[in-house]
């Protein structure tokens, strides 16, 4: 409001601080810093071959049909043992009208053909924001299915300690079968020294026409 002084706002705040100090009430604890760093690697977050990123002025980059990405998990503190409990896929279909710049087409000549399944890769197909099929293909090309919304199959343990190492990169391809704009974050739940932590990645947006 025009003309209102800073002192007006600071008054109740100062009062609160005085109460904290004289009544023995401490300030609320800041959330404990997670010993795990989880982030999507920008350089490895790419559209599917033959497609280009849609640049929307309001929403930022949108990936047509699907996206290839790499989730990097890294222990921030080498003295702690960290266990990744789950990586929750949190999709949401957004009620947004597609802009004209969202039109996309695949250039077929940019899809090189090889054949073998890609090892050490997660593949996720969303049928909307409530169901998805998830598979992990290991080094030997064995398939490990996972149950939505957890990206991790039951038999895949990710742990960070001196023996297992302090870094892990998870390559994945995420594709949407549902028409519309799907926004997705990955929520990494981990435990260290009996404390649970949750971290979310920046959102990815996938558009299917």
């Amino acid at each position, binding site marked *: 409001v025009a003309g209102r002084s800073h002192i007006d706002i600071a008054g109740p705040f100062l009062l609160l601080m005085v109460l904290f100090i004289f009544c023995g009430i401490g300030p609320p604890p800041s959330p404990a810093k997670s010993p795990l760093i989880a982030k999507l690697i920008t350089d490895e977050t790419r559209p*599917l*071959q033959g497609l280009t990123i849609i640049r929307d002025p309001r929403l930022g980059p949108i990936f047509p*049909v*699907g996206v*290839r990405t790499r989730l990097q998990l890294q222990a921030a503190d080498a003295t702690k043992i960290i266990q990744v409990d789950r990586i929750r896929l949190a999709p949401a279909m957004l009620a947004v009208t597609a802009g004209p710049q969202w039109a996309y*087409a*695949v*250039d*077929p*000549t*940019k*899809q*090189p*053909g*090889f*054949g*073998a*399944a*890609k090892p050490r890769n997660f*593949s996720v*197909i969303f049928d909307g924001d409530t169901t998805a*099929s998830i*598979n992990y*293909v290991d080094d030997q*090309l064995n*398939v490990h*299915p996972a149950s939505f919304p957890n990206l991790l199959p039951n038999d895949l343990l990710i742990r960070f300690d001196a023996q297992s190492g302090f870094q892990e990169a998870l390559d994945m*391809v995420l*594709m949407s079968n549902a028409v519309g704009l799907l926004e997705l974050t990955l929520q990494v739940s981990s435990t260290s020294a009996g404390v649970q932590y949750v971290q979310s990645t920046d959102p990815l947006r996938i558009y299917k026409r």
Partner: protein
Amino acid sequence: MFNRPIRSAYTNVSAAPLAIGVLALLGATTPVAAQECKRTFVAEIGDAAQSMEDSLLQTLRKFQKSTTPIPREVADTAQENLPQLLKVRALDPHTRHDFANFDVYLGSEYRSSSPDVFVLPRDARVLCLLAPSTTVFLSDGHIHHYAMVRSVDYAARTVILVDPWASDSFLLAGRNLARVAGRPIIVAGEPQQLELRFDELVKVIHGTITGTGGYKYLAVLDDVFNDYRSQESYQFWKFSRLLAVDDGEPQAYAATLLRTSGDIVGKPSLQLLLEYANDILIRVASGFSIDAPGVPGKVSETKKRRKLFLQRLPAYAKALPWVLKWNLIKKAASFHDDGLTLAIIDSFLPETPNDVEFLTARGQVLLRQKQSEPAVKQFEEGERQWRSGLSELIDLKPPSRAVEFYFANKEALVEGFESFQVVEWSHIRNRLGYAAALLQRDRRTQVRNTLDPLLKYKGNLMTDFFPEQLTLMWIWGGPAEAQALVKSVLDHPEWLDESEGLQWYIGHALFEHLVTRQSVKDFVKQDPKFPRYEYIESILCTRVKNEPASDLFIYCPTCKLRDASERLTNDLKSFCAAGR
């Protein structure tokens, strides 16, 4: 004449030709009709389908490919796509180019402004068009792959693909984004195979190349995609693929259909294609003395027709598929109309300045014109573009690392990727041309450093690059060395046994040599055995008797070699007529 040998989707598998043309005439059997199809290509070719399947398996048993891992450096950058596969077939010395390849992408999501790309919808209709040896492009949107159809079972509603990657295929359950669960068929000593249900195949089939069955394939295609028949883009695709055949008959068929069809009115791309057909079949071949079939223009109008042709070239550069452009260059070059060949290449290069084939072809014209210094520079430019192209195929920076990676891993790359076959052929042709240009400039030049690395070529350097080697030998050692090269090839009929395509390729170069450089009389004088070599009749004299090209220079008033070659041509005709 209008069918293709099996050319595997896998590399280094050039197969024995199929006698499908004859077999196709035997008549159709009565296979089970597909629910989706009023008519099927398999039914159309009848018993030939079984023969094609047998030949395919026989060939693949011979050339079992090792499934080495894909190098990360090329996994996303190698150009393995349908236009590239057609380029491989056009440049492969072992392939006779007298069959049409109909390449089509499938899927409404596909778009391209390239004249090399044509798209039809991806739906169950594609099932009607499959036959043994059809190349299929498979994709789940993330992983893409090529395989070949072994058989189509309309009763069981399944397709069996031959695929060296079947046991590791992305199309097995859980490994793909299309929710397809293919069944591998792994039998010791047999090529690996993969079975898919019809509904699964339709989900993942994103393209096909059909190189067998020619007109029968087109008849079924027209029927199945009846709603597309009158579309300009569909017609352009169909006729351009017929015109891409390096053989007069299908070209003439396409030209006749274009000419007699009132359908091309208001369709500029088809009108351009008709001009192209007349250019490659008649105008260029007659030195522009004839304008079109049934329209023998006045000789006085030759210059005008040539000028009009030159004016069309920029439009050709933009609108024509690569193979048509390449064939036009080859046609002009085969008539030794050097000025015209250069004009064509120079019109095409602005659209694709890094096309190594065009650059090398330009160097060869300069070499023939004895413009040694410009030829040296031209081949050097070709080499630069070749290296720069490598850095686009191999994901390593700076570009010099891509070149190093290529030479360190050449064998695996060429074995694993068809696009790297083209890379290798382009480089060897360029280097042989470069060595010839250096020697033409100064006979004392040491070219060993240029040629030694080529000895690592895994195929037969003598046969696979015979035309370039013949030129090199002619420039370096004159008649004696050129004849020694010819002798060494003819002394090994087992090399020529390998494929009809190779015989045609060697024969064409030998014919060129004997009507432009060296008299057949000299050959016989130096080597009395020459008339009795096993392949002389089939590779040389059949051509002399049958092809109007044997009179080529007589029709070409602008050809500088006309007078000299007329004498050589007449010598060759007498030689072949003598029956030896």
